[in-house]
């Protein structure tokens, strides 16, 4: 048992740190610093740099563009990305769809879709949730009927509604769960389809979330024709793909490195802000206690994640215990956001979205913190709500 990094691992850290410093897009950095809204190209600029370097998809199989990094190297990589405050890579293509493609797709499908994901040329969105299917995802109703087209080819005719579709306003393509057999048991009649978002019959309508942002959308599908060759894996066996995807979605969900960064910022703010007695807020007995408890909680999470990492290194895959990482990781992120909001005091109130980030109202670090806190409530809801995660642990780990 030890926490030491090998000389090779330290050299690797130095290498990735230098690369991030030297290659992070300057224009993107400037926009982020100024809090300017990001255009579609901004979301992909860093992605494209990493694709050129060969580091965009570390977890993929080597022959498809993966890096063959050890779990420790991946851990170092995520730490360095957080340390540099680098933009998060959009997960939909690289982290979510690609593993389904290379696990379940045909050779033709892999060749057709993986390069666009890798190089960031195609933006993907996820069509899973529906108004009536959230935690109970298998109850989804969007219907796909097999028809013969005028051209003699076979199609699915898709009708229904998807919701909470993140950044669908930018998406070129989407991966969708649809019902192909309405008479089978819920999980048994689902298929996994790739749909071009420009297909006639698709309407994307914004959902404005409580902090005022446009991140998620409703997606309506009205007689949308999808070629059958866009189906991944067998008809009616899409649930197998969906489950595999959820397992991938969970790795890295603890967000320890990002939370450590956020904690550092909270401490800085609390050193700057004044307490009622005029000293620093971090010197205030009550506030510092809350920060200390959070810091200790985060340390425990960090070591829980390191333990799962060590299991992975020794060949044991990530088990259902990773649900702990989701629950604690999101609880800690939310706690951080609420303590930052608490720390900035009265300057949590101004709503600056429409005034621009240079509104010069209150301290810079207070701008947007309420919005982040409101937006952050999603983390304990998405990706399988924290209550669903508890069901998973109860069933899969405790055997209840």
């Amino acid at each position, binding site marked *: 048992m030890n926490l030491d990094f090998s000389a090779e691992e330290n050299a690797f850290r130095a290498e990735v740190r230098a690369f991030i410093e030297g290659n992070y897009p300057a224009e993107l950095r400037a926009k982020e610093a100024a809090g300017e809204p990001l255009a579609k190209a901004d979301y992909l600029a860093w992605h494209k740099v990493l694709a050129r370097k060969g580091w965009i998809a570390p977890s993929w199989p080597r022959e498809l563009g993966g890096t063959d990094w050890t779990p*420790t190297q991946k851990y170092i990589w995520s730490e360095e990305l957080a340390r540099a405050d680098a933009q998060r890579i959009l997960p939909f293509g690289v982290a979510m769809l690609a593993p389904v493609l290379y696990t379940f797709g045909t050779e033709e499908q892999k060749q057709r879709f993986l390069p666009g994901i890798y190089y960031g040329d195609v933006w993907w969105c996820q069509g899973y949730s529906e108004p009536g299917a959230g935690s109970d995802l298998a109850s989804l109703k969007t219907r796909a009927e097999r028809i013969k087209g005028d051209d003699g080819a076979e199609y699915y005719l898709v009708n229904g509604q998807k919701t909470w579709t993140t950044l669908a306003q930018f998406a070129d393509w989407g991966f969708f769960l649809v019902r192909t057999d309405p008479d089978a048991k819920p999980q048994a009649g689902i298929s996994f389809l790739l749909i071009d978002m420009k297909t006639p019959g698709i309407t994307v309508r914004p959902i404005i979330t409580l902090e005022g942002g446009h991140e998620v959308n409703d997606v309506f599908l009205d007689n949308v024709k999808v070629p059958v060759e866009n189906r991944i894996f067998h008809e009616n066996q899409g649930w197998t793909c969906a489950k595999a995807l959820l397992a991938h979605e969970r790795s890295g969900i603890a967000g320890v490195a990002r939370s450590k960064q956020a904690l550092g910022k909270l401490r800085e703010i609390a050193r700057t802000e004044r307490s009622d007695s005029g000293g*620093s807020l971090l010197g205030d007995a009550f506030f510092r206690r809350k920060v200390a408890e959070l810091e200790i909680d985060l340390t425990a999470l960090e070591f829980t994640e390191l333990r799962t990492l060590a299991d992975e290194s020794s060949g044991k895959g990530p088990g259902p215990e990773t649900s702990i990482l989701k629950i604690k990781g999101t609880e800690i992120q939310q706690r951080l956001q609420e303590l930052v909001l608490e720390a900035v005091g009265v300057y949590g109130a101004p709503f600056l979205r429409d005034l621009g980030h240079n509104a010069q109202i209150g301290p810079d670090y207070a701008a947007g913190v309420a919005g982040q806190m409101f937006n952050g409530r999603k983390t304990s809801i998405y990706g399988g709500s924290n209550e669903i995660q508890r069901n998973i642990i109860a069933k899969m780990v405790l055997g209840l």
Partner: protein
Amino acid sequence: MDFSFTEEQSMLRDTVASYLADHYAFDQRRAALASEPGWRPDVWKAFAEELGILGAPFAEDLGGLGGGPVESMIVMEEMGRALVVEPYLGTVVIGGGFLKHSGHPDAAALIGKIIAGEAIFAFAHAEPQARYSLADIKTTARKDSGSYVLNGHKAVVVGAPYATHLIVTARTDGGQRDAVGISVFIVPRGAAGVTTRDYPTVDGFRASEVHLENVRVGEEALVGPENHALPLIEKVVDEAIVATCAEACGVLRKLQEGTVEYTRQRKQFGQPISAFQVLQHRMVDMFIQLEQSVSMTYMATIKVTDEAERAKAASAAKVQIGKACRFVGQNAIQLHGGMGMTDEMAIGHYFKRATMIESAFGSVDHHLARYEFLSFGQAA
């Protein structure tokens, strides 16, 4: 980075676990605690002779197994699982810790006696007024022509009734709460002037109020630097905290597993109560607290040898373990319903130990304050 155990370490765990499974069943423990002397010298002898675990964290040239904090963690976790009351912590971790770190001329000989099961130590440090402050000491040691004369009152000295030696902290200089002026002595339990009032503790140990009245010891009784022993005390207490965290992991594991098992058997409303989601989620939260505690114990075990990190790591771990002991312990009783309230079920005994661990070597509040100071500096 490595979180795995070596083959030797896994063997150590198996050896201790299987011995305790055979010789330290709940009923055997209960019977021994209810009769005199309230502990089991035969078990201690087996620890020394059959298992060799009293030498686990000592160097091989001293006759030990050449292990360190990881070996202590393994042994203590198994002790926790079986609710062992024999004085491993006081003797091997604390007594052995002072001897190892002090460079005392008799250290090798005394460690040899510990390993052989012949020397048993109790830590006579806390005082009635001191709460958890390590520097708050009224007991005095006056230098008097080549010897020291000790006077004072030490509170709740766990294991003192069966100890051969006491580790006594005393003031050789300075005021009651001064950091400087503290020294450590080894005092034979039977020395003239030592009187004890012995009693059982709520979690099954035996302890004493120790009164020192003009106890005269030679200069060789001094362990570590005269007047400047506080850093040594802090170091050994941090090691004891980390070992206690490991013990707690064993206790918590039993509480959590026992609760899952009980709710699967207990039927109400025509079904096992484990089928109720509200209980399932409670047990998941208990499980999370347990796993976070194991993680913090690993963290502190690894960092306890790192002088720069040790204190912060020990306090952080103790905060997590203290909270987990309360949450897991109380919910274990709650989910056992009325049966959890009975003396005959083991679960209540684990709960009582967990509750005492909460405040052992400092409560959650104490360690949060210490952590805050180490992490953020002085409060404004």
